[in-house]
């Protein structure tokens, strides 16, 4: 029983992070119809920036701000310079560009920050709570993780549903041409979309790193799991990304806990294939099944 509880709680914590990452992917997919395979590498890079700042003597929170701002800038710059030329062209080109970014960023991080494993601080206690004399795998830090993700998601919901800017971004994502005819500066909306997604990606990178080790490839698996989560929820659905993320977090945690951690990647693959074969538009797509 205790193991089940622990595995579940771990899964929820991980799931929250996958949810954030999947949300970043969905944001970019909705606005530019591109899957940003470099999202993890971007998050990894900004996390390293935060680490540099923290090891230079600043607090975790300063590092957090640095990472988020860096993410904002990085996302905007990448969209404007690298992605804009391939938007609207053959899908293959955009896929390859994001993969190139992925490889380049990872190598750059290794050059600038080294390939060795470095530990990243966690802002809160990492010891599990003791409930009724039993130690469970839920820590103060886990609470922070979940709260951070929830706050960011609520902020995004408020932005998109209740502000004019959010309305413009959604319109630009759904129908570029019509939006332009209504005076929406679509280019700026796309850049903003990438910038916001990168902020969310940076947050994911930080949350995963907290209390753990970072190395240039540490976000590689997250890209895959985040992608599976986004596909599970439906690439067009932010709500789906959240549910997908939590689901994947739980499922993979069970696989890791009961079957072995080497099989986690295989389980992710199996889930992905199952979703793509059975319900390719994802669980929450309300639009007609998109051509997958």
């Amino acid at each position, binding site marked *: 029983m205790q193991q089940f509880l622990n595995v579940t709680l771990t899964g929820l914590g991980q799931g929250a992070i996958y949810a954030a990452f999947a949300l970043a992917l969905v944001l970019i997919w909705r606005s530019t119809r591109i899957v940003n395979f470099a999202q993890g590498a971007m998050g990894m890079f900004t996390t390293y920036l935060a680490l540099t700042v923290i090891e230079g003597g600043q607090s975790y929170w300063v590092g957090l701000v640095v990472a988020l701002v860096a993410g904002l800038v990085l996302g905007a710059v990448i969209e404007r310079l690298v992605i804009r030329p391939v938007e609207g062209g053959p899908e293959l080109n955009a896929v390859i560009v994001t993969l190139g970014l992925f490889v380049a960023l990872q190598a750059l991080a290794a050059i600038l920050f080294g390939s060795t494993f470095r530990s990243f601080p966690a802002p809160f206690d990492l010891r599990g709570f003791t409930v009724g004399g039993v130690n469970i795998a839920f820590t103060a830090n886990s609470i922070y993780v979940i709260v951070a993700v929830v706050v960011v998601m609520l902020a995004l919901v408020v932005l998109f549903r209740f502000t004019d800017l959010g309305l*413009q971004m*959604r319109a630009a994502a*759904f129908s570029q041409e019509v939006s*332009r*005819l*209504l005076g929406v500066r679509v280019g700026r909306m796309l850049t903003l979309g990438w910038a916001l997604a990168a902020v969310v990606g940076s947050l994911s990178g930080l949350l995963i790193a907290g209390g753990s080790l970072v190395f240039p490839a540490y976000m590689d698996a997250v890209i895959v799991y985040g992608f599976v989560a986004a596909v599970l929820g439906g690439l067009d659905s932010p709500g789906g990304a959240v549910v997908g993320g939590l689901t994947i977090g739980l499922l993979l945690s069970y696989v890791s806990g009961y079957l072995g951690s080497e099989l986690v990647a295989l389980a992710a693959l199996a889930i992905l294939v199952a979703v793509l074969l059975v319900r390719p538009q994802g669980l929450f797509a309300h639009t007609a099944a998109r051509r997958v």
Partner: protein
Amino acid sequence: MSTGRLEVRGISTSYGPVTALDGVEVVAEPGKITAVLGANGAGKTTLLRTISGLVRPQAGQVLLDGADLTKAPAEAIARAGIAHVPEGRGVITELTVEENLRLGALLGASRRKTERGLAQVYEMFPPLAERRRRDAHVLSGGERQMLVVGRALLTGPSVLLLDEPSLGLAPRIVAQIFELLRGLVDAEGVTVLLVEQNARSALSIADVGIVLNLGRVVARDDAATLAADDALRHAYLGF
């Protein structure tokens, strides 16, 4: 709403090797409905898309009150006061009715003006008011047309470009919408460029008519004169 004089001078637009427009000259006066007529493929939609900036012409100019808008991006042209209701209407179906309208109202200045504008549109088109919180895809064809016209009006345009508003609509609704247009032009003095395949209905409310054929202007006259010209009607307008 302000008024504006739209001039299209010697516009030639091509899609790759295909010439869609060849040296087209059009003048649309404020307070008048200028109908652009012709068969399928005559270049009518391309003309509107060139004016609104979705397509770049290879030659020629688009002038609004003398200002050259030819090379401006579409969003800048919209902000300059040219509202284009595109072919297929352009309802953003993933947004609600009200959100679609608000999108248009964003070009208007203040919050109060938006609320007033919305109220006006709802008064003009009661079916929209009934469904204001629903996703736009639940609207019927006629209601969608109302939505996009209302949305375009909310941008406070000086020029209104309409691409085949009657397409797919019942004659009764078409008559309603055309009547509304005529009333709008008479009351506010907006410039309207109306592209239509339904030449008969278009000429009945238009002041001036222009006929395109294979990318060229083949006739230009008062609407009444065009409607009375049997040979022309048979050759290019199908009635």
